[in-house]
């Protein structure tokens, strides 16, 4: 049987790298990117890592370091990152007919059928090409299974002498075991935090220990998922490439607010806006939902103010992707649990019981009719099309509010250099 060969291409400090493509002044400077609402650090340049800024650290803890070392700070600019990601994936598709876009900044390439003589050389060519075409630096890990690719990539990032590319397929068994004995068990792909604690209690501390663990025992305690990881560490590919992303079973839109919100009318704007966003996502994957959950909560960090959090779910009698309908249910859910006198900080809308559009069942007895369904679908199609051409929220529902002063803070947002004519780079 032919040996499987995969490459994992991972963008280095992706959000920071995107900003660097367009900002000449931050090339070798420490840079960080903040999460939604400018709360925590979610991407760091190597220079910022060296200064001791941690992943996920709240930004107020870093203010001193930021000032002292003149660290450049950006709000997350997802319009830019999504476009740059699409460009990177587009380049990678030129290197293999089978690509799995694993996340916004990572992709697996199936190289099994390509008969490549020198995989390390292939890795360097890929890396150079992505850098030239998009400006994004990447690391490449090559191995016979996806789990080993992940390990190759982590190793590359820690050890600069690999120059960004590591091929594990040519390693001797001994060298491979040596490498695996340096990988902590919690860093193995697919081993969650809870499983890693369990394994450590049983003396399995490193990837190498897991590789040689009894698979029957692993299967019993870690289920078939754990057993697959053991086999993958041994070099047998068990996790196939997912070239088609499965449709999401739940669609969530949840964000904290830029300031505290107390009035019901304002929360209604929030919930309607989040519902509209979720409905948009629902339609973009050609699905309908028949259950909606709304949640609200106060700021848990403000210990001295009264705390309240709640969620409320409603079944919708028939699946729908019609925004006004979803908003109506969402607002009912909100009213059912809203309590006066609290400072709300976050809300979310979660759509579940999702079915593909082809699967809709007309119902003789309910208000669902195909005639209405197609009218609604056509209206939403036109709204989505207009918003796609002229920008998000060109058309929106009045209940979403106009000023939306509760919107999240993104005070250090860079321009949408690749998706808005009015914001392209000027030099």
């Amino acid at each position, binding site marked *: 049987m032919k040996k499987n060969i995969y490459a994992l291409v991972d963008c280095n400090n992706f959000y920071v790298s995107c900003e660097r493509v367009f900002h000449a*002044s931050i090339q*070798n400077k420490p840079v960080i990117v903040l999460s939604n609402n400018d709360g925590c650090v979610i991407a760091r340049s190597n220079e910022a890592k060296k200064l001791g800024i941690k992943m996920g650290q709240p930004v107020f803890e870093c203010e001193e370091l930021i000032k002292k070392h003149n660290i450049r700070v950006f709000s997350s600019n997802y319009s830019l990152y999504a476009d740059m990601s699409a460009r990177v994936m587009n380049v990678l598709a030129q290197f293999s007919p089978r690509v799995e876009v694993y996340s916004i900044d990572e992709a697996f390439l199936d190289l099994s059928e390509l008969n490549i003589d020198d995989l390390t050389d292939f890795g360097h060519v890929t890396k150079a090409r992505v850098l030239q075409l998009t400006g994004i630096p990447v690391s490449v890990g090559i191995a016979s299974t996806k789990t080993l690719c992940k390990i190759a990539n982590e190793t590359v990032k820690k050890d600069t002498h690999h120059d960004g590319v590591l091929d594990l397929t040519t390693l001797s068994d001994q060298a491979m075991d040596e490498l695996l004995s340096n990988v902590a068990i919690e860093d193995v792909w697919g081993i969650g935090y809870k499983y890693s604690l369990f394994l450590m209690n049983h003396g399995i501390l490193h990837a190498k220990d897991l590789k040689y663990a009894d698979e029957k025992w692993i299967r019993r305690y870690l289920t078939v998922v754990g057993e697959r990881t053991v086999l993958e560490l041994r070099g047998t590919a068990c996790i196939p490439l997912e070239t088609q992303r499965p449709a999401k079973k739940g669609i969530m839109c949840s964000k904290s607010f830029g300031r505290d919100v107390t009035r019901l009318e304002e929360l209604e704007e929030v919930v309607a806006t989040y519902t509209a966003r979720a409905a948009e996502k629902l339609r973009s994957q050609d699905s309908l939902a028949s259950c909606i959950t709304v949640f609200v909560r106060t700021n848990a960090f403000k210990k001295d103010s009264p705390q309240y959090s709640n969620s409320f779910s409603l079944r919708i009698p028939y699946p729908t992707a019609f925004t006004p309908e979803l908003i109506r249910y969402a607002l009912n859910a909100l009213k059912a649990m809203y309590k006066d006198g609290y400072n709300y900080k976050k809300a979310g809308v979660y759509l579940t019981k999702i079915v593909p559009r082809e699967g809709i069942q007309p119902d003789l007895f309910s208000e669902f009719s195909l005639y209405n369904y197609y009218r609604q679908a056509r209206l939403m199609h036109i709204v989505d099309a207009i918003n796609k051409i002229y920008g998000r929220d060109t058309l929106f529902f009045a209940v979403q509010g106009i000023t939306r002063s509760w919107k999240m803070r993104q005070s250090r947002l860079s321009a949408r250099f690749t998706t808005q004519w009015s914001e392209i780079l*000027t030099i």
Partner: protein
Amino acid sequence: MNDYRVSLFLWRVPCGFPSPADDYVEAPLDLNELVIAHPAATFYVRVSGDSMKNAAICDGDIIVVDRAQDPGNNSVVMAYLNGEFTVKRLSQQEDAAYLVPENPLYPSIRVDDTADFYVWGVVTYCIHKVV
């Protein structure tokens, strides 16, 4: 990536004769086809200043920058030099590379070995508003 054509209204003819042109319908011309050779590597950048005006790149114009092309000698490039982006003609001379403006009022810039320098992309088209 650059294709946002969405049919909002399809032409509907409830009755009457079919058009004799139906069999000859072709897609309308798309400017993207002309100016974009490598969609993943093409960016638009607005130019300020008149240092390239003799190369027909004027203040306020939008240039099309293709990162997939290798810069040849005398290509017009967008370059990074010592913390700034600039558009100039790249000229490889015996002693060093130079970034040469297309306007006699500006000096050429010598790119010496110590410079922090790279070519960001090659300028392939310039969009200039006439009216």
